């Protein structure tokens, strides 16, 4: 088996760019990733794209501008995990020797589709019943409030931490100010108990990565593990909240593949589309026992200067959440952190990083897909 390595990363800025062509966001990210990896475009022998809302054909229109035609190219839709699902397929392709230099692209332009929360999918039983995504997460949060005694202040602490981190991310969408817990809780109610400042914004953006085999470059990052899982039935038989089990399945396999424990992870980027999402994800990743994940942000454990910083980029709550781009944005942040080039956001210990992206929304499943990858710096 060939050891897959992360050669380079790049991103666009994140925000509302309805005046821009979606392809230009992708070109920003790809150009930076190609420079970062130190490759020439002609070396790229496959392109794998993650996008939820496309539009159809976006990848080919991106290719046209790159002059990279003829090579294998395909697009993956795995809800919010689309970008990291594309990355995972690149990693597996390199591991098996199928390709030698794969371009991964995640891209979505939400501002041209939705002026607020994503309109629920009309063909889904719960989407048709007007369950918005913040409502789905609010149902998780209410369960945590009622079952584990999690407090609204603990939820808000996640937003305070991530929005403070985002102040130092020049590419983040929301970086005007870091709210207090009281300000988070007094912002407009979206779906009880989630308030506006506990919800990720509507966003446009792209992220890119170059994945290839070990080429003897000390700056390349070792991909110790990459795991993708699809959803399983989520129903009256289980006690877990929606989403928990899919993350736990991916995490268990990823830690086994890397031969590591959760305590060995120095820095994490996880799926905080809503505050409760980060709490449940960190439990599923094994950073806290069930019901105790809400203590990690208030205690400072997951702060940028804490024992295990989580979402030093500002996360989805600050950076924004252009669905397909999110996973590749998380990868880029972890790559910058592991190389010690995260500027004002740099965390102190940065040898091993973890990215988790969970996509969901299909009724009766514990997720659409979840990807967990563990990456480390050499030496």
């Amino acid at each position, binding site marked *: 088996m060939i050891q897959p390595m992360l050669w380079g990363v790049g991103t666009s800025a994140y925000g*509302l760019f*309805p005046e821009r062509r979606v392809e230009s966001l992708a070109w920003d990210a790809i150009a930076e990733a190609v420079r970062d990896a130190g490759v020439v475009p002609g070396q790229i022998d496959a392109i794998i794209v993650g996008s939820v809302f496309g*539009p159809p054909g976006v990848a080919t229109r991106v290719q046209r501008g790159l002059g990279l035609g003829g090579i294998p190219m395909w697009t993956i839709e795995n809800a919010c995990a689309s970008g990291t699902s594309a990355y995972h397929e690149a990693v597996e392709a390199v591991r098996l020797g199928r390709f030698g230099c794969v371009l991964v692209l995640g891209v979505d332009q939400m*501002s*041209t*589709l*939705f*002026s*607020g*929360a994503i*309109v*629920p*999918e*009309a*063909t*889904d*039983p*719960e*989407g*048709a*019943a*007007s*369950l*918005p995504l*913040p*409502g789905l997460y*609010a*149902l*998780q*949060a*209410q*369960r945590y409030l*009622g*079952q584990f005694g999690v407090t609204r202040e603990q939820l808000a602490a996640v937003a305070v931490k991530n929005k403070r981190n985002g102040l130092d991310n020049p590419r983040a969408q929301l970086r005007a100010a870091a709210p207090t817990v009281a300000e988070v809780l007094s912002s*407009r*109610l*979206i*779906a*009880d*108990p989630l308030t*506006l400042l506990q*919800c990720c*914004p*509507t966003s446009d953006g792209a992220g890119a990565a170059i994945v290839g085999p070990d080429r003897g470059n000390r700056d390349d990052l070792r991909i110790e593990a990459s795991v993708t899982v699809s959803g399983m*039935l989520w*129903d*009256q038989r289980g006690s877990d*909240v929606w989403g928990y089990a899919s993350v736990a399945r991916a995490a268990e396999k990823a830690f086994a593949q890397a031969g590591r424990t959760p305590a060995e992870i120095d820095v994490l980027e996880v799926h905080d589309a809503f505050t409760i999402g980060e709490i449940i994800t960190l439990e599923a990743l094994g950073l806290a026992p069930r019901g105790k994940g809400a203590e990690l942000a208030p205690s400072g454990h997951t702060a940028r200067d804490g024992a295990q910083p989580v979402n030093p980029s500002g996360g989805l709550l600050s950076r924004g959440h252009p669905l397909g781009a999110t996973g590749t944005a998380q990868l880029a942040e972890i790559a910058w952190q592991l190389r010690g080039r995260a500027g004002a956001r740099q965390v102190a210990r940065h040898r091993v990083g973890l990215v988790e992206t969970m996509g969901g929304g299909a*009724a*009766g499943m514990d997720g659409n897909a979840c990807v967990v990858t563990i990456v480390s710096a050499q030496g």
Partner: protein
Amino acid sequence: MPSDVETASPPASDPAAAGPPASDLGVGRPTKRRPGAAVGGLPVADPRPVFEASAVLGCRCTACRYPVAQPGIPWCPVCYSPVAPDRFAASGAVWSSTVVAIRVGPLRPPFGLAYLDLDDGPRILVRLADPAVVPIGTRLTITGTDGGDLIAAPEDSTEETS
């Protein structure tokens, strides 16, 4: 019964939803539109559970008895045995509930939603007759539908009115 369902076709944009105001977006440019009647697109087949004669319709596994509130599945998703049509109790216990404070599709805020574990039946999403969060385990009964959504109220309140 709630009367918060609009009969007129709603606008495609939702300025009251989460996220920054974007009222000028798309003005003077080509626009994209998601499918679905609720957002001004074309109608799709209704995927919601069906409530009929005081029962929720669906199917149940003939071997392991796993219940599903969806018709037309090819086999039991748990054990792959054949399934047969079944009718489920309209009462159950709340797994979790929330009140949505933004406009979604045809619904104006506030409206309450809950996952309801039907007695010996599946977990389904219902709209609360009264838009207020209810404690985990609260007993609810489905009293009817509104615009195709299943409406549920506390068991004792339905007994009082019957």
